[in-house]
């Protein structure tokens, strides 16, 4: 049994001795005080676990001594049990009122005495545990806030490399929003125009903040190097997919503003409908999410398709995370899409919409506690974006890098069995700054040409097989079998680039060891295509200036001039 330290304060020495003996017999350590003053002094010095206090003592009586002890104990819980022969209810109540926790009436019942001592000891243990936990929580919380401040500072250094302060942008993002999962990024493109990205990570706190870091880094890094938004999104998706646990992802809306073409392209995955308002009209155009959020699909299944629409100077695009729509009033009711579109519809002019939304949401929530951030951004098309602040740097950037070069890469059967050369090819092409803006499309072209050469040429698979869903499955079954059995064959890739700094020409030639095909007949039948095979061909045609089949059809050469007429 644990020895408790028990202070017994009683001026009556016979009473004190008897009680002291009983308590000691029960295994406790006893300190005796013969009056109230002594009790307070001994308490201060020895800090007993529990105090048994006679009520009537000369000098300082039990009640007053208790008050003093309780005040010395501060937030520690020290149970004081009054010893009394008083038996009327009011006297007993008075004892408790003066700060006593309980009373014991004389003559004492030894069993009850020990039970009370034990019970109060448990209570003070619990109290101590609570205090320790409280202090620990407070300490952890202080530590966490400190960490968040530091993390916020680091994050700001990454995120504020951008141009959210640009005059064509208005936005609302709470100061610690990064820890609530909302991210807002904007960066000028080297050739004029701007990329904007609004992200909403699932969850709150650290997981969301961690995902935001590489996202901002990739966004700013790649945009500054001249990569197209599709390529940026592709990279962010891949990064998030690899670092976030399954079930965590980032809903996002990304915009590529191209003032030179008076157009914008958006990619939306998992965010609510956004609106486009014309400067000169009343019509509200709705943009809807067409993709899965970032970080869900693997790189090969990620869809980077953007929706392009004309956007004249002064036209406004409004983007938000679900925080605005899910903002709750004091009754727990959500603001909702309906209210939002009504606010937009009722605004006198497109330029009032931003303020009107903010006001409507503020009035609606009226200070109630919110679970989510109400991130809102307005992006206005502005001709001034065409002129690049940093044109000197970026023009120089574009004119740098390799201009006139060529390389040939021949892959033999043993290599083709397990190695995909497309990423390497892409990497080499991306050394040319002018090709970065079309990196995504180039990747698709190279991937398509290579898989044609390998699958139809080297492996001899017929693309016509892919015309039905069953054939599609059979095609891939056959592919796997033939790759396993492959012993000879090759694919030769030749890349040739010439450039003058701000424009250039890339020629890709692929030859394979296969039998080729009747490309003259293929040309005649073009347009009778199907949904399963040759998906890449229209895309190749939209980017390449020419496609030429040669020899027996086992060699193809495509030419791409950059900059493209249209960057989609």
């Amino acid at each position: 049994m644990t020895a408790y330290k028990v202070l017994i304060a009683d001026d009556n020495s016979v009473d004190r001795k008897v009680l002291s003996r009983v308590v000691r017999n029960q295994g406790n350590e006893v300190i005796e005080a013969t009056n109230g003053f002594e009790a307070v002094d001994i308490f201060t010095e020895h800090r007993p676990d529990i105090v048994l206090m006679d009520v009537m003592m000369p000098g300082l009586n039990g009640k007053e001594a208790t008050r003093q002890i309780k005040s010395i104990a501060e937030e520690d819980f020290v149970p004081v049990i009054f010893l009394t022969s008083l038996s009327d209810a009011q006297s007993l109540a008075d004892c408790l009122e003066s700060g006593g926790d309980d009373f014991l009436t004389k003559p004492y019942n030894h069993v009850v005495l020990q039970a009370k001592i034990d019970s109060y000891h448990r209570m003070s243990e619990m109290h101590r545990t609570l205090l320790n936990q409280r202090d620990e929580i407070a300490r952890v919380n202080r530590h966490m806030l400190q960490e968040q401040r530091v993390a916020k500072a680091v994050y700001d250094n990454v995120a504020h490399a951008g141009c959210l302060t640009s005059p064509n942008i208005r936005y609302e993002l709470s100061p610690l929003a990064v820890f609530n999962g909302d991210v807002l990024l904007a960066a000028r493109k080297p050739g004029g125009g701007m990329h904007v990205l609004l992200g909403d990570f699932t969850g709150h706190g650290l997981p969301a903040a961690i995902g935001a870091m590489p996202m901002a880094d990739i966004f700013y890094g790649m945009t500054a190097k001249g990569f197209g938004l599709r390529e940026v999104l592709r990279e962010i998706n891949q990064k998030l997919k690899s670092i976030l646990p399954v079930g965590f992802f980032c809903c996002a809306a990304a915009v590529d503003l191209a003032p030179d073409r008076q157009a914008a392209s958006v990619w939306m995955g998992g965010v609510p409908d956004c609106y486009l308002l014309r400067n000169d009209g009343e019509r509200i155009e709705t943009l809807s999410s067409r993709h899965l959020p970032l970080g869900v699909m693997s790189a090969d299944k990620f869809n980077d398709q953007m929706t392009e629409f004309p956007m004249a100077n002064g036209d406004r695009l409004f983007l938000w995370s679900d925080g605005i729509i899910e903002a709750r009033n004091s009754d727990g009711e959500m603001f909702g899409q309906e209210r939002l579109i009504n606010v937009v519809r009722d605004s006198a002019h497109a330029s009032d919409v931003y303020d009107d939304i903010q006001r409507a949401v503020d009035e609606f929530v009226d200070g109630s506690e919110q679970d989510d951030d109400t991130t809102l951004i307005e992006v206005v098309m502005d001709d001034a974006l065409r002129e690049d602040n940093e044109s000197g740097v970026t023009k120089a950037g574009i004119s740098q890098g390799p201009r006139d070069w060529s390389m040939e890469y021949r892959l033999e059967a043993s290599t083709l069995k397990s190695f995909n050369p497309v990423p390497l090819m892409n990497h080499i092409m991306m050394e040319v700054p002018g090709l970065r803006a079309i990196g995504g499309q180039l990747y698709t072209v190279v991937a398509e040409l290579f898989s044609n050469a390998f699958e139809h040429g080297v492996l001899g698979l017929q693309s016509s097989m892919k015309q039905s869903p069953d054939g599609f499955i059979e095609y891939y079954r056959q592919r796997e079998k033939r790759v396993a059995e492959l012993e000879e064959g090759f694919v030769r890739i030749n890349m040739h680039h010439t450039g003058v700094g701000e424009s250039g020409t890339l020629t890709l030639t692929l030859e394979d060891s296969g039998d080729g095909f009747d490309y003259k007949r293929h040309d005649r039948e073009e347009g009778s295509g199907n949904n399963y095979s040759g998906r890449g061909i229209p895309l190749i045609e939209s980017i390449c200036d020419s496609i030429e089949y040669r020899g027996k059809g086992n060699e193809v050469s495509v030419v791409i001039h950059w900059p493209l007429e249209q960057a989609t």
Partner: protein
Amino acid sequence: MSVRASLAGNGQELVIQVDGRFDFSAHQEFRDAYESASQVRKYIVDLGGATYLDSSALGMLLLLRDHAGGDHSEISITNCNDDVRKILAISNFEQLFTIQ
């Protein structure tokens, strides 16, 4: 909120019913529902009684998909009300799940 799981189709189909608000509070129960079942080839998530779902519910569906074999999984989400259907549509989950 409540999550109930039952087997159908000779024990090869697992029906998971979620009622009420489908949010983070359902996390453990939802996970237990599919992790405790073996030999299951097809999953049916019945959201007939679900009034609302948030992004963590979407995350839980992705976890189930991962558990069920990722791209080879067979998961149907059924009986969604309009609000729930809208949330699934915004996130384009019909690309990953059969939504009925």
